[in-house]
């Protein structure tokens, strides 16, 4: 191939990449991205499983003497959790009874499935998480959580793998609420370890230590999932506080996460939306 052909090929490839960069992605990422994620995902998972196995082997050999103690502690913890679960079942039943009596329509609880973390890059500016969802098929915008709090949402599902946008990603924005005062704002990622809570007016009551949870008004994340804790409040020159949050989740310790199923829209409501769209 002559120089002209090579230059034409170079221009063609670069233009193609720029089109990929600047085009609006499909609802679930481009076909090429999903293909590559689905192809590279198993490689990553194999490495992840082998690494975990190696660590566990070494850990078991070193900590053999502590295993029995940890086992006993975990048994006691499980017993306590069973008792708490029984108590909460009673509370749930009472709430449902009261809801029926008062005619209050409660939102149905969401299903969830467990996913293994294959890869987590939390420190570079291209923060991401890749999950293996086992037999379940992930869907775009499914919230990803742990027992500690909110992790992010699925942005590119591919087969049994999913790429997740972390809440600490600079492009992430989550509707948030200060639990104590119910004041609502937007939680945005600003750095590896930080979140910023924006759109909180200067006259709003906010203090260090306040817990911030999801507000449930962005159509993606349900209400009440812990996002983080307020660690600094500064008054800026504008109309809003400059608030920094410590995330509730330690992204360095992620091993397994829960993926929440998307809420199904009631048929009656979907019919109304479809009718008004026509």
């Amino acid at each position, binding site marked *: *191939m002559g120089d002209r052909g*090579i230059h034409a*090929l*170079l221009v063609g*490839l*670069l233009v193609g*990449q*720029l*089109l*990929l*960069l*600047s085009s609006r*992605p499909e609802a679930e*990422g*481009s076909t*090429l*991205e999903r293909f*590559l*994620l689905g192809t*590279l995902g198993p*490689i*990553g998972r*194999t*490495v*992840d499983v082998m*690494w975990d196995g190696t660590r566990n082997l070494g850990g078991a050999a070193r900590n053999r003497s502590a295993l029995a103690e940890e086992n006993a502690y975990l048994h006691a913890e499980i017993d306590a959790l069973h008792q708490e679960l029984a108590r909460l079942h009673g509370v749930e039943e009472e709430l449902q009874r009261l809801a029926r009596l008062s005619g209050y329509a409660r939102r149905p609880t969401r299903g969830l499935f467990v996913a293994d973390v*294959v*890869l*987590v*890059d*939390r*420190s*570079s*500016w*291209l*923060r*991401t998480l*890749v999950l293996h969802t086992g037999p379940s098929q992930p869907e775009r915008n499914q919230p990803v959580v742990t027992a500690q709090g909110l992790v992010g949402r699925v942005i590119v599902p591919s087969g049994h793998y999913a*790429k997740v*946008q*972390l809440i600490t*990603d*600079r*492009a992430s924005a989550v509707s948030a609420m200060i639990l104590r005062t119910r004041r609502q704002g937007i939680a945005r990622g600003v750095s590896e370890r930080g979140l910023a809570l924006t759109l909180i007016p200067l006259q709003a009551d906010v203090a260090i230590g306040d817990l911030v949870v999801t507000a449930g008004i962005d159509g993606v994340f349900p209400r009440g999932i812990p996002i983080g804790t307020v660690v600094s409040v500064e008054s800026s020159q504008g109309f809003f506080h400059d608030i920094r949050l410590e995330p509730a989740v330690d*992204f*360095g310790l992620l091993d397994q996460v829960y993926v929440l199923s998307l809420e199904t829209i009631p048929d009656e409501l979907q019919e109304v939306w479809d009718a008004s769209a026509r």
Partner: protein
Amino acid sequence: MLQLVRFVVALAIAAAIQVLGLEIHGGFARVADPFLIVAVFVSLPGRPVAAMFAGSATGLACDALAGGSFGLHGFANTLTAYLSARLGQRLMAQQPFQVMLLFMLAGVFQQALVTLAGFLLVADSELPELWEVLARMVSTGLGGLALALVARRFSSWLQNRNDARRGKLSMAR
């Protein structure tokens, strides 16, 4: 066909190294880029067409596993690999120092491209810190040199083995 198979295997190994590196230390992706090393390695013999396709494939593979916009590293690696191939043609890099220098220059150039394309085309981009730039430059140089030396050793071992086989065959006749 054999070249293609080798490239695919190299890409898979780069993906495995990326995942393993992140398992060992969460900041691995800030200081190393195994995909870029594979792209520049393909460019070393000075073949621009192979280099461009290698750059595109490695860059898009990196984008598939990373956050941010799909195509960012694809763009940067394509151009970096092409220019590395052109430079490789001029320099005919054979000495270890020359090879390492080529990889280091490619590392710095690719970071500059990613940052520039990020600021121009992607919202919420970030400037890398100086230590990250230097660390990536050094890791790309050393990683590329190691790969080149291993590949050279393997090639000469393969050549010797083939020569020995041919020698045996001619003696048998």
